[in-house]
């Protein structure tokens, strides 16, 4: 029963959504049913967020109690979660500091703490990329040389001064890069990847609907 029930739910839900695709979603029963299912996904998803909150609190609180390595950071994690979450779910009718509107605690924490910290972390990538370009981007063989030359041309093409320099050379090189690199080789490869990924997703969905794929239940 513990296996059969989830497999049946997955089969029925998947089948309804697949069949509903071929019917008018506003006027037919199956179309309305498919929308009902999608509403349930949103509701269940809300509970999974709550589950995540409980889980992260339990794991980190256990580490704080044991005073394990880095417990102080875990304590900060717990404090940050609740300081952000609690004011954001309280009604703004009680105070303009509650809720998620402009001027609320949540908005302030996001704009003046979280966003700058995340942007800073991401910005440091520029330094690592420059360092890696110097240390690792080597023309060791033919494939690496092609990659290196293409990357250099695209990097030049993507900035105004590089484009101006390329325009000094004979032939319309920026246009050639756009036509043959980005809309040629790149487009063909990307299209292959997209089609391949879509086929993979379709076959995986079919395996789940038919109950062949059961790893989502923790079973092989």
């Amino acid at each position, binding site marked *: 029963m513990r296996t059969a029930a989830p497999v049946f739910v997955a089969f029925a839900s998947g089948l309804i959504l697949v069949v509903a695709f071929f019917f008018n979603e506003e006027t037919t029963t199956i179309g309305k049913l498919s929308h009902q299912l999608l*509403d349930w*996904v949103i509701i269940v998803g809300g509970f999974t967020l709550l589950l995540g909150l409980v889980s992260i609190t339990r794991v980190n609180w256990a580490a704080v109690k044991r005073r394990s390595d880095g417990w102080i950071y875990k304590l900060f994690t717990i404090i940050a979660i609740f300081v952000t979450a609690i004011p954001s779910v309280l009604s703004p009718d009680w105070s303009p500091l509650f809720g*998620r509107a402009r001027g609320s605690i*949540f908005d302030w924490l996001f704009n003046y703490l979280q*966003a700058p910290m995340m942007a800073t972390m*991401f910005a440091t990538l520029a330094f690592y990329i420059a360092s890696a370009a110097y240390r690792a981007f080597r023309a060791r063989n033919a494939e690496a040389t092609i990659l290196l030359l293409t990357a250099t041309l695209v*990097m030049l093409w993507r900035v*105004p001064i590089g484009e101006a320099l390329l325009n000094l050379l004979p032939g319309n090189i920026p246009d050639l890069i756009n036509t043959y690199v980005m809309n040629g080789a*790149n487009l063909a490869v990307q299209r292959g990847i997209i089609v391949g990924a879509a086929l993979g997703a379709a076959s995986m969905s079919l395996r789940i609907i038919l109950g062949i794929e059961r790893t989502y239940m923790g079973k092989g």
Partner: protein
Amino acid sequence: MEQIDRRWVYLLVGLAVVIPFIIPMKFPVSVSPEAQSFYDAVEALPDSCTVMLVFDYYPSTVAETEPMAVVGARHLFRKHCKIITLTNIPYGAPSMAESVTRRVAAETGKEYGKDFVNLGYKYGYVSVLKGMGQSIESIFPTDNSGTPLSELPMMDSITNYRQISFIFEVADNATADYWISIVNAGYGVPMGVAMTAVMAPKYYAYVGSKQIVGLLGGMKGAAEYEILLGQPDTAFRGMDIQSLVHFLIIAFVIVGNIAFFVGRAQRRKGRAA
């Protein structure tokens, strides 16, 4: 030379980032065909139509993505379009949507609830995108601040995608794929994608198949749109920094390879001796 102290590399990158702030160079920006077709599609929209401006990006990429959202909002407000903002990213995107649209609305004298609405975030992008095909209000009964949609005058005449003329997607991740495959393919709503430079190459495939009307790739894409709009701003200024840093990285690659080949030749010579 092959193993230079990385602090020198960091110092040079730091200088390449800081110098253009002090001495603006204002390199001329040319417009790519993808940005031009994006701009033309938005320009061709009927005045006062309703457009979804989607903020599917994380705060980490805000330097690259926000200029695209700003130019989008500016262009749409200039055309007196009604803007619905929403996001599939829980990580602060509703706040970013709020701050961008309110800032641009203040420039153009637009009013919340009448000219633009921020729906915020709802879990489960596939369900959200499909669900809005039937009823936006069933998925977002309230806006981001908790005001019921029925109390917002702009939403009176908007039920689902049938009233949406265009989707302006700003993203730094693959959620754009779902907008294309569910909303564009399923409901026929035309859309354009403004994407971080690292993600942009993938979306050339969708431009080629005409599933999206155009593509803005990274800060350069935003700068191109700013030029088309006749209002050079943050992205245009950012092009100076990006130009120098790209040149620096190319210089590092060249110097690194020269050092590698010289070092290899010396090692071979040493072994032969």
